[in-house]
């Protein structure tokens, strides 16, 4: 029974990872792509790891996958923040559909 629940978690995770990768291809600029990448890939990968934990139980691999969930949840948003800030400071423009950029307005004259 618990194997089936684990496999369902793994399938959900794979679906979210797929949508995250599709977002990387389809969305227009760095910032939108980062959004798709961080959100979907974080929860998708966490779901896969949790499914793995359910399937293998409290073994060496299962406990490591639980640790990975914690580290992933803590580090993925920080990495996205660093990439987005670096891209903006390096002068990467927002996509042409964008309607407002308060960051550029406030940072004018600095740097």
């Amino acid at each position, binding site marked *: 029974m618990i194997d089936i629940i684990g496999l369902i978690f793994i399938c959900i995770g794979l679906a979210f990872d797929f949508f995250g990768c599709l977002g990387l291809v389809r969305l227009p600029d760095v*910032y*939108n792509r980062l959004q798709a990448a961080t959100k979907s890939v974080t*929860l998708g990968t966490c779901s896969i790891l949790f499914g793995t934990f359910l399937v293998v139980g409290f073994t060496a691999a299962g*406990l490591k996958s639980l*640790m990975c969930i914690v580290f992933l949840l803590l580090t993925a*948003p920080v990495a*996205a*923040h660093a990439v987005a*800030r670096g891209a903006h400071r390096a002068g990467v423009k927002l996509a042409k559909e*964008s309607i407002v950029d308060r960051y550029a307005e406030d940072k004018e004259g600095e740097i």
Partner: protein
Amino acid sequence: MKSRIILFVLAFLAWCFLNWVPDWQHLTTGFFVAFFVALITGDLFVTRPLLLKHPYRWWCFIVCYLPRFLWECIKANIDVAYRVAHPKLPINPGIVKVKTSLKTDTGLTFLANSITLTPGTMSVDIDRDNGVLYIHWINVKDKETEAATKIIVERFEKILAKIFE
């Protein structure tokens, strides 16, 4: 000193999880490694050890924050999946400015991380002196600072203020 002890315990626990099943050789090595780590990076990681002593804050963290965060995270994923799979790509992106009243390091970090993993928003930069966050929003509903603050920040700010301030 207190923060070093907490860091030692955390490092030792992480070591034990990574080297499951524990036997005495692993535990001895882990003891020395954790001691070394705690000695070098003592005050960098845990700056306010007193916070960990309040049961009320733990209670808030586990009962109020975690379910809220998981729910928003799942909503965010469905939102991204919908936008990406839609043939017309319904996005309306932009960077808005929001204000926050949180002051501490941990509180701001958790707020920025929560914003990144919730529907449609991602934190780009923080200005600590003015308490301002710059948020990239995939579907801008309101350009003005106050209205955006109401929509984005207030989901988490009250809970985080209870836990970390």
